[in-house]
């Protein structure tokens, strides 16, 4: 897969420090349009923090984030979403006291834009159709009226992805989407992610090494805040430094 397109997302020398800890240390990489770019690394490597920096949840101490050619460093999350970048969370972050349907409709509400501000959401066809599509795609038909807080863990993880997807982003950041899922759900989510790529560019944090190797076009390995290696999956897997730092641990974990 040789592509001459410019990357959809570029990260350059991105760093953030929390007091004495440099949680992300001068990380650079490119994510190509339509690809699945995975970020792996042991616990505490700084993967989620990297996502926080890209999605605007926290501001970097230094470095740049370039999205579709625009410098978006330090842009707040709602700007990033408006620009076309959405994310899911490692720790499920839903509206637990609202129904599955309402969670999705809130997430799809952005599609309507400001011109429909005076129209009740219950009459928004665009949001309605988007929500229905997602409910079907993520097999939540029987839970549509259930409160998100009452769903099983696996269902909540599916809803977490669906909520991130509702606004039709061009780039989707998934932070350990299969965390705690059953084998069946994991396999299904893997298929889902694969089918989403292409139209969508995906950044994926995953601990499941087999899943990463199967899915990714490109893998970035992080260790203690810094980038240890990057490249196609097979190459990364064969890298001795990566094996020492990550695969060694992961097999014992």
């Amino acid at each position, binding site marked *: 897969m040789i592509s001459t397109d410019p990357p959809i997302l570029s990260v350059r020398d991105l760093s953030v420090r929390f007091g004495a800890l440099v949680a992300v240390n001068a990380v650079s990489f490119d994510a190509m349009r339509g690809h699945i770019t995975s970020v792996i690394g042991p616990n505490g490597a700084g993967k989620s923090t990297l996502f926080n920096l890209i999605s605007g949840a926290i501001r970097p101490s230094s470095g740049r984030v370039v999205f579709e050619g625009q410098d978006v460093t330090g842009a707040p999350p709602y700007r990033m979403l408006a620009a076309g970048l959405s994310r899911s969370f490692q720790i499920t972050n839903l509206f637990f006291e609202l129904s599955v349907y309402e969670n999705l409709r809130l997430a799809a509400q952005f599609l309507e834009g400001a011109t429909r501000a005076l129209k009740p959401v219950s009459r928004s066809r665009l949001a309605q159709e988007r929500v229905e599509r997602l409910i079907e795609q993520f097999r939540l038909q029987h839970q*549509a009226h259930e409160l998100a807080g009452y769903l099983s863990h696996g269902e909540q993880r599916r809803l977490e992805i669906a909520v991130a997807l509702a606004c039709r982003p061009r780039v989707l950041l998934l932070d350990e989407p299969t965390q705690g899922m059953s084998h069946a759900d994991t396999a299904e989510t893997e298929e889902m992610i694969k089918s989403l790529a292409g139209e969508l560019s995906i950044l994926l944090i995953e601990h499941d090494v087999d899943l990463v190797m199967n899915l990714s076009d490109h893998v970035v390995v992080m260790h203690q805040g810094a980038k240890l290696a990057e490249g196609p999956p097979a190459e990364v897997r064969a890298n001795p430094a990566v094996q020492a730092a990550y695969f060694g641990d992961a097999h014992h974990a």
Partner: protein
Amino acid sequence: MAEHLLALRAAVMRRERVSHSTLHFFAYAFIALCLVFAAIAMATGDVFFFRLATEALIFGGLALAVDILLGYTGLLSLGQALFFGYGAYVSGLVLKEIEPSFWTAMGIVLVTATAFGAIAGIIAIRARGVYFALITFGLAQVVSKIVFNTRELGASDGIIGIPVIKTDFLLFQVDTGHAPSFFLLVLSIIVGLYFLVAYVMGTPFGRTLVAIRANESRVPFLGFHPWRYKLAAFILAANVAALSGALYPMLRGFVSPELMFFQVSGNAVIMVIIGGVGTLIGPLYGAAILTGLKSVIGTFTEHHLIVIGMLFVLSVIFFPKGLVGHARPRIERILAARGRES
């Protein structure tokens, strides 16, 4: 389109219709009760109870404002009387000093309360949870003390001698001195505010407020800036409180610094809780109940606050969702069953 999706769409629409018509059922029932009351009071020619009921409606508007913040945005305001008193003072001053006109008073209150609400909101919504409550409490405390000590505003006496006004509406004229017609005017305004706010809560703006209450941290990742929404909710609530307050001097002919005191803010929160948090119409019921109780119990004992305090504790224990919150599922079931039959 797949059959299960059609079924889902139908189910969603049915649920929305039922929950919508349930809340409006309580609104229509409230209007009906008010009209029945008006007919009885008119027949007996009782002015005192008309005035009291009008006051209950006015304080109901304040409670409605508290519910916008508490029930929808998750912000507990302990100083909403600040805006209520603000509206009352501005309205009183306009009527007395500028022009004895209903529309001028309401118009000036609306415009200036928006500006005042924006300033106070920018200060208050920086804080969350209990700190928000303390800031609203503090702001109201500071302003009420300033008013209390300002001779130009009548200091502790407030402003007295606010004239009775006559206002032309399209088809009829309302005289604030005529208890029944002023009652009906206030009823239309407060219920109108209720329907307006209820509509707003169904728009993307209102749903985003609900999202903020449920989990503010996710809201920015759906594309919305919580700060803006909270500020807009704060300004809306300031306006609802101020417009309600603006009716007060038309009813009583005076305003006093007590209107901004914590007692008034606290009562509004109690009205919301006994009526049903997050129901909008509940606060109007709460206002009627609390005002009625105070007046009835007040005729038997000086210690009516003790009795009301105990009733409040009991109602929170036995009806934690308030009157409307408690009755809502029952009415919903009835309306849903009727919807299936037809």
